[in-house]
């Protein structure tokens, strides 16, 4: 396989001075494994940005570095900066709990807690002491509505979350993330375990969410990246190969590697 260097990175100048997320020279290691190499990436507010690339290219590690979830992995090491609203979250005195409240995360496999539907959504606001009683009920209702799940569950809020279908569980997880009033939502292949109908619903939801939130979605599904995102980043072997307007990246890729990936030559 051809070795690539960051110099080849084709990077549209997005001309963002007010980037919501600004990743600068980010390097991540797991033990001796250099997973992310000199990543520079500016993400605009209230857009959907897709991060695509073959398995093992570091896309999951990249979004997990935005809410510092990599900290939890034994033997991980991060070098570089990630600015959110102009503040470097890798600063020593960062309050990671507040950071993670501000940045919601939705995982590959729906992972509701073994609690009721209501309790799942109420968990975040409760631990952050954001509301209780009627106020909490309102947050739960609002979050479920925002996640397009309310109508399906309003009569059985106190049933177990496991009584829901896979797609519903994933929307519940989105509602759970929305309940703590985040500004950014990170999604790690949120549809990989869902059927096409459930996937379509999540994608439609995603578009709507980007009116209010900054969404970063990891996907290995090219069509999905093309359908839902405003901007697309292509990651390959820990390096950012191409980044720009989704339409531009798909129709006129600047890098040979991106082109090969898009046309299905590898991946």
């Amino acid at each position, binding site marked *: 396989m051809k070795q690539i260097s960051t110099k080849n990175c084709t990077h549209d100048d997005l001309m963002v001075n007010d980037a919501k997320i600004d990743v600068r020279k980010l390097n991540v290691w797991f033990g001796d494994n250099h997973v992310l190499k000199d990543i520079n990436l500016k993400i605009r507010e209230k857009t959907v940005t897709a991060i695509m690339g073959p398995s093992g290219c570091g896309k999951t590690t990249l979004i997990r570095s935005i*809410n510092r*979830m990599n900290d*939890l992995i*034994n033997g991980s090491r991060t070098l570089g900066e990630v600015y959110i609203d102009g503040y470097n979250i890798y600063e020593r005195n960062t309050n*990671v*709990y*507040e*950071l*993670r*409240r*501000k940045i*919601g*995360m939705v*995982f590959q*496999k729906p*992972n*509701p*807690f*073994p*609690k009721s539907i209501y309790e799942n959504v109420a*968990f*975040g606001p409760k*631990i*952050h002491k954001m509301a209780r009683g009627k106020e909490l009920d309102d947050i739960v209702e609002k979050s479920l509505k925002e996640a397009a799940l309310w109508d399906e569950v309003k009569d059985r809020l106190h*049933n*177990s979350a*496991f*009584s829901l279908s896979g797609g519903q569980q994933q929307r519940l*997880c989105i509602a*759970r*993330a929305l309940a*703590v009033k985040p500004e950014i939502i990170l999604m790690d292949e949120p549809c990989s375990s869902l059927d096409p109908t459930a996937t379509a619903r999540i994608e439609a939801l995603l578009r709507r969410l980007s009116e209010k939130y900054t969404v970063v979605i990891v996907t290995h599904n090219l069509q999905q990246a093309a359908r839902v995102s405003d901007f697309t980043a292509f990651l390959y072997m820990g390096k950012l190969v191409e980044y720009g307007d989704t339409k531009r990246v798909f129709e006129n890729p600047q890098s040979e590697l991106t082109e090969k990936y898009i046309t299905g030559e590898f991946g």
Partner: protein
Amino acid sequence: MIGAQKEELIIKIILWIVSLISVSSFFVIFLYMFINGSRVISLEFLTTAPNPIFWTGGIFPQIIGSLYLVALCTVIAAPLGILTAIYLSEYAVDNLITKIARFFIVTLAGIPTIVIGLFGLAFLAYRLNLGISLFSAGVALSFLTIPWTITVSEEAMRAVPKEYREAALALGATRWQTTWHIVLKTAAPWIMTGILLGIGKALGETTIPLMCGGSGLETFIPRSLFEPVGSLPVYTFIFATQGNVSSAYDRAFGGSLVLILMFLLISVSSLIIRNRYQKKMRT
């Protein structure tokens, strides 16, 4: 040569018979205790003190004594065991120190009870001057159940999917909030049944209360932690070993029948706890 089908059938029948023997051993023991023990069981037997001169009387102080011992042991062992398990499962990184800690826990779990009993007698009762008492025996019993509680609780917590922890942490929960609200709540039914089984272990233990708890012939209920305490296993042991005094022998069966009924109660409760939880999760 016999056909494969026939072979399967023979194996099935053998396994069935062996299983029947294993399972029925409990019923044989229970029935034997029931037949022999029910002769002495009466309201009087359950509510009066033993008479150690004529080897008659009841087992009231021993029932209460056993409950006291088990309660004290659990009050010590459950928090210590669960908190240690939380440390090992949620906080500690896997390194040499935790490996050594786990090794000692496993070893402590296998220590012969006579060793713990002697330690209770020599160190707690005599050296620390706590006396042959409820306290000495309760503490010594907790040495028996702490490793058990740790092992069961840690296993229960490790069985909680890591996806739950990630979800909670990604919402901004601290490690303690995640442990408390998610991990412990999810593992609770299994931890509870583990504690119940630990209670069963302590309840049935003879050597330790015999060595540092009391003689088994107590005619009174301890009024403080530092008085000797009677217990059902010790009572059963003493009454069963009085040669051909038939009133004593019968009473040993009575004591053992009450003990086995208490065990059944514990097993049934742990079953109910698990079933109820599983039902709750499905709807």
